[in-house]
């Protein structure tokens, strides 16, 4: 049996969803008992509305927005779609090559802005593309979900301003992990998801810069909630949890996470891994490790069977691991199919690197055997290989 069989799984997939923060959990549970609809006129409705607006104010304060410019929705996929449809319907759209599918699918005909080999956006090409477009909407993530690579948002925002373009920032992974105020940097809108920062699933927000607040056309009209910009009763418990998560989200934890991440990365490199995007500025909690010779999905499954939760690429609803467009865009070639993402949650334990590396070294040994041995047919491999890792 595996050494950790029966133990609690080691959760290292925070970029898929963060561990719920205790304050968020408490606020979520308390809000579940609020019977009122924030749109109702009676006392219970007013109480619900009060909680909603308090949450809105806290979220606005945290992200440097005005409360009236926080549009609550179901999550970042919707927030991205809201920005692209609501602000970009009459604009040419440019998106980064490593954007999340939430952006890619909402802007299928967009022009792609390439990235450099380290995963950061190619600013020179962005400049050239913007010179050819009039009043474009540029969509750029603050930090990439698969590699943690941080894009130079301030520089991109300046280029946009210089060319009369507007910038939408998907700050899902950066929120509470990086200390930036994207609206202050010049973004027209910013997408945030509650469950990626330690809040509950099912709530998110689009933050809109005051200059664009009136231009935002709704995706869903419904009952005119969110000042007519997003119809549908707000998910109040999740929003209360969202605000509470921010209250306790401490950037002070960042140095500790970075140290744990560096320990994982150093150990993995010793075992033969390549850390993707490590030359670029990155999120403190994320590393993308490529292990030539073993497919990403095999690595994810083998680690899962050892009680370690990581991911690769972006999972589709079937759960299959699709090839990573992010790593393809970085020009990794065959290596793109051999990379996993390790993303530490805010509450990662100090023993996480040791436990991860124990399992990872076994994987790496198998990958090494495959690379050294049998570059022949699967049949020949099947004959030649011992069955046990």
């Amino acid at each position: 049996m595996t050494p950790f069989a029966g133990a609690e799984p080691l959760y290292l997939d925070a970029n898929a969803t963060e561990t719920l923060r205790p304050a968020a959990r408490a606020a979520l549970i308390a809000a579940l008992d609020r019977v009122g609809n924030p749109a109702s006129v009676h006392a219970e409705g007013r109480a619900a509305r009060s909680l909603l607006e308090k949450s809105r104010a806290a979220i606005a304060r945290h992200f440097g927005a005005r409360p009236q410019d926080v549009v609550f929705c179901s999550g970042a996929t919707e927030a991205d779609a809201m920005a692209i449809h609501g602000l970009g319907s009459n604009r040419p759209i440019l998106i980064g090559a490593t954007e999340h599918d939430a952006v890619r699918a909402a802007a299928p005909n967009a022009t792609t802005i390439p990235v450099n080999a380290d995963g950061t956006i190619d600013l020179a090409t962005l400049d050239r593309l913007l010179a050819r477009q009039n009043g474009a909407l540029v969509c750029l993530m603050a930090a990439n979900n698969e590699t943690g690579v941080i894009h130079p948002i301030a520089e991109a925002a300046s280029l946009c301003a210089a060319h009369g373009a507007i910038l939408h920032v998907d700050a899902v992974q950066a929120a509470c992990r990086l200390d930036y105020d994207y609206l202050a940097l010049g973004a027209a809108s910013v997408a945030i998801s509650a469950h990626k920062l330690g809040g509950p699933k099912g709530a998110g927000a689009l933050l809109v810069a005051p200059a664009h607040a009136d231009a935002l056309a709704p995706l869903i009209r419904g009952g005119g909630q969110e000042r007519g910009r997003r119809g549908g009763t707000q998910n109040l418990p999740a929003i209360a949890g969202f605000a509470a998560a921010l209250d306790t989200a401490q950037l002070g934890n960042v140095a500790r996470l970075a140290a744990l991440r560096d320990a994982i990365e150093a150990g993995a490199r010793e075992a033969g891994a390549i850390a993707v995007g490590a030359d670029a500025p990155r999120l403190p909690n994320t590393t993308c490790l490529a292990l030539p010779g073993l497919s990403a999905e095999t690595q994810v499954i083998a680690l899962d069977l050892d009680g370690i939760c990581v991911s690769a690429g972006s999972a589709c609803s079937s759960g299959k691991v699709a090839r990573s467009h992010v790593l393809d865009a970085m020009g990794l070639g065959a290596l793109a199919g051999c990379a996993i993402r390790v993303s530490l949650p805010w509450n990662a334990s100090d023993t996480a690197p040791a436990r991860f590396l124990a399992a990872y070294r076994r994987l790496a040994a198998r990958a090494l055997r495959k690379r050294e041995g049998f570059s022949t047919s699967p049949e020949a491999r099947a004959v030649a290989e011992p069955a046990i890792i």
Partner: protein
Amino acid sequence: MRIVVAMSGGVDSSVVAGLMHEAGHEVIGVTLQLYDHGAASGRKGACCAGQDIHDARNVADRLGIAHYVIDAEAAFRERVIGDFAESYAGGRTPVPCVRCNQHLKFGDLLGLARDLGAEALATGHYVRREDGRNGPELHRAADEARDQSWFLFATTQAQLAFARFPLGSMPDKARVRAEAARMGLPVAEKPDSQDICFVPSGSYADIVGKLRPEATFPGDIVDGEGTVLARHDGIARYTVGQAKRLGAASGQVVTHIDAERRRIVVGPRDAGSRAVRFAEANWLIDPPEAPIRAAVKLRARETPRPATIDALSGVATLDTSALAAPGQACVVYDGTRVLGGGFIV
């Protein structure tokens, strides 16, 4: 032991997973996503996963076993669907299930099972694996009506050594369904899958036509002398031995498909030949150096035909002549045991 079960989402492989789990093994369910279900069913924006994948997950969940979906679309497209279209365009009649078993289930999936440290790969195939004096042997299933040994002739000895087929000894399908019901599996009543999995509408010629349009171009139906008897609407719609779709040539059978000239050649219904040539042979015994007496099956569903098989030259000489369709398999049996086989050329 740690064992990977290939779970399609159907009742058969679900029962295999359940039985292995009950037997105390550490079962890892794996479902191969073979094609984009949304694209195959023509619904834009439909989920890429078909109902079968959801069913497999539900079964795994019910059993409390790990389950993973593996993206095998590229391999399936190239090695199964590509070969399928290629074969028809060349005037042959492919058996996609053989290619899928050969390259995906007992190729890539078996490799994954080894990579995960599993000691065996179990599938829901109706065949029996017996441990013989010289290693594992492949035999027909106890349930003759369900026997799938013909589709597994290309399994190598090394693959067979790693494979397990728990349904091979099931007396019939009713028993398999009863087992599913006993274990409370949500697929106990699920209908059997039909025909070719990647042809949901049943029009395989459309799929061939998309990849190799020339295989669906019209052409002539001719007799042995080359006299034109009728027209056809694509060689992909014909198989050697076929008696339908012959128009004015009805009453005869297809004896040959001339892909280059897009001609369907017909002959009398008793046409045939005793010699059947095969290639890409796979042997589950030491390849016989002298001709052997055994039986061959030239189609999935037929009674084995007595024959003398020369492995070295790749020729089976039938006792009585028959029409063998190129692309189909010539599988060699000794009683219930599969000795080997090859693709008819």
